[in-house]
């Protein structure tokens, strides 16, 4: 090493005058770095970066699509639910109406039946009464005539007289029944 001599007389004192060896050395060194990055390494990483962007963008897109689908399904379910609820309400309404109608009909039928039964009963009663009255009339006539003939001691066998007398008696009887009660109580 002769560097201590160089301190006194520097090998070169013009810093802006290049040494061509170093210029070429530096140029080659840089070009090697550049070419390897350009041809080998950066294409690899830019490809991966692009793929990553794609993957992320694709993921977002997929998520978007899934969300839209989910929203669509939710909307559909909501619509179906709404329809079902509506149907149920309508059915309930209908059945209520139906029930009311059936009840009304039944009531009407029952009333008609009751009325009919009542009417039949009344007719029966009236008929029975009529029969009773007729039979009583005949019975009471016969009994009264028998009693009177026993009391009077003579036979009131004369058919015509007998019937006239009985009829008059019964008419009087009915007339006294038909009079106001005050008249009867005063008698």
């Amino acid at each position, binding site marked *: 090493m002769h*560097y201590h001599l160089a301190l006194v007389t520097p090998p070169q004192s013009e810093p802006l005058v290049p040494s061509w060896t*170093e210029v070429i050395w530096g140029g080659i060194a840089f070009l090697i*770095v550049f070419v390897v990055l350009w041809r080998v390494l950066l294409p690899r990483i830019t490809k991966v970066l692009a793929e*990553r962007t794609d993957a992320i963008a694709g993921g977002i897109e997929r998520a978007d699509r899934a969300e839209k689908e989910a929203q669509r399904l939710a909307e559909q379910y909501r619509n179906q639910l709404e329809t079902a609820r509506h149907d149920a309400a309508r059915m309930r309404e209908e059945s209520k109406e139906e029930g009311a109608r059936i009840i009304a009909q039944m009531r009407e039928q029952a009333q008609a039946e009751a009325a009919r039964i009542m009417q039949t009963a009344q007719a029966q009663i009236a008929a029975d009464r009529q029969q009773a009255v007729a039979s009583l009339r005949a019975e009471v006539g016969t009994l009264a005539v028998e009693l009177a003939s026993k009391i009077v001691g003579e036979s009131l066998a004369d058919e015509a007289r007998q019937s006239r007398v009985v009829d008059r008696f019964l008419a009087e009887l009915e007339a006294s029944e038909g009079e106001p009660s005050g008249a009867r109580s005063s008698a």
Partner: protein
Amino acid sequence: MNHVVVAQAASGCDHVLHGCPYPSPSITDFYFSPLFTIGHFQFDKPMLLVLLSTLIVLGFFWAAFRKPQLVPRGIQNIGELGILFVRDQILRPQLGKKGDNWLPFLSALFFFIWINNIWGVIPILYFPATSRFEYPAILTAMVWVLYMGIGIWKQGPLGYLRTLSVPSGAPWWILPLLAPIDFLSNVFIRPFTLSVRLWANMLAGHVLLLVFALATWYLLTWSYELVFSAVSFVVLIGLTALELLIQLLQAFIFTILTAFYISGAYEPAH
């Protein structure tokens, strides 16, 4: 620092205690006797550092991007961080998305310059290769050829001459004055400033570090000078941090200006 010390040691003089004078740093600190010589080819320390930078940049990106994974891990993350920094902070602002095929060139430029700068604070090596003018000069020459070539190719010789000489929006009557200045500025001063900015920053930074590193060592005595030594050391640490910043910044500036010049070659500035 070490070569000065080595030089002094070789002459048997390494410290003020031995009556040696303080060896003030000078331009001679930027010249090295060759490590070995083959014929006319002399291999010196800056060339070794450039070689190491090349191997480090390539080695790093080889490790990071040899088999890149879709889901990055480890060193690939750091590599991507670096490449995306160049793309998003340097390339895209100047050239836009269509300039993405310039990414290899700008990445190579940025990392090559940065690593060559970083040697300025690495102990033992302690010399930024870019403080030798040859390296900024050859890089600038490439950039100049590129942007002049692209400009002539894309805009035609006359079109690019117009872009280089006529600033947009200038009134016609000032052009006789402005056009020569602009042409000179864009064609000759640009490459000069581009290379000298990087080189001078690194050179000045190295001299600064040398001043305080040498002061720390030469004032290290058992006397009141110990205080100066200690202060020098503290300043040295601070300046080292500053240098780290400047090394990154200069690589960034060189690359972003390159992107700007290339962008101007593609289409006239707006």
